[in-house]
């Protein structure tokens, strides 16, 4: 790989690959989110609060 003169372009010389199993987890979460969004759209506009339990890195009481 040719080195770029801009050092910001060379910060990550060994790019990592995301494990393939993450795709299934994301798509499962997306399917649940999609269902929640469809259902909650019928009764409320606050679907984000209904989805807070799906996140790993955000505390439930911080989601907005």
């Amino acid at each position, binding site marked *: 790989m040719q080195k770029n*003169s*801009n*050092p*910001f*372009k*060379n*910060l*990550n*010389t060994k*790019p*990592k*690959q*995301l*494990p393939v199993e*993450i*795709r299934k*987890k*994301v*798509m499962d*979460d*997306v*399917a649940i*989110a*999609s269902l929640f*969004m469809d259902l909650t759209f019928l009764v409320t506009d606050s*679907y*984000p609060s209904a*989805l807070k339990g*799906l*996140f*790993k*890195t*955000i*505390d439930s009481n*911080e989601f907005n």
Partner: protein
Amino acid sequence: MSLPLLHKRITDEKLVKKLISSREPELFGELYDRYADKVFNKCCGFAIDLQEAEDLTQDIFLLLYIKIGSFQGRSKFSTWLYSFVYNFCVNHVNRNKYRKMKDSSRNFEEGDGNPLQEIPDSSLFELKSQKLKKALDQIEPEDKSILLLKYQDDATIKDLMALLQIGESAVKMRLKRAKNKVVNAYHNLK
């Protein structure tokens, strides 16, 4: 021609437009395939370890599905996405009080009280990438993210104005401050 093959040939912006109107998970899967590794590698720059980077990536894609409608096409989709990723990571780092205490060496302020210097891009490009990586870890994540958007992801001043919702002079001042901080951090590295 099958639908999946059609999706693979369209631009990011057209794909997202279709996704916003249809909410089809299959379209989101295509977007995931295009950007999963790129998002993951950006998360690695803010996470403590690979597990945290994986968790961040997973959450970012879920939030992306929920918030995809907020993409208004004012910049390239990839630039908007990287800004979305950095925002999420910056919030995560700032939220993590334990890490804030652990990384007490952060909060590198510009110039230790000296006035801000105008650092030309040519001087910035003379920095060595491995040492630059360490210097970026020393400054505030907000400063790191604006530098990465500008110099790694090629966001223009106009893009940054739209993404950060601030004026041109404010963007330039934030860049100037961030450049000062990273250069000072770089020269203070042992």
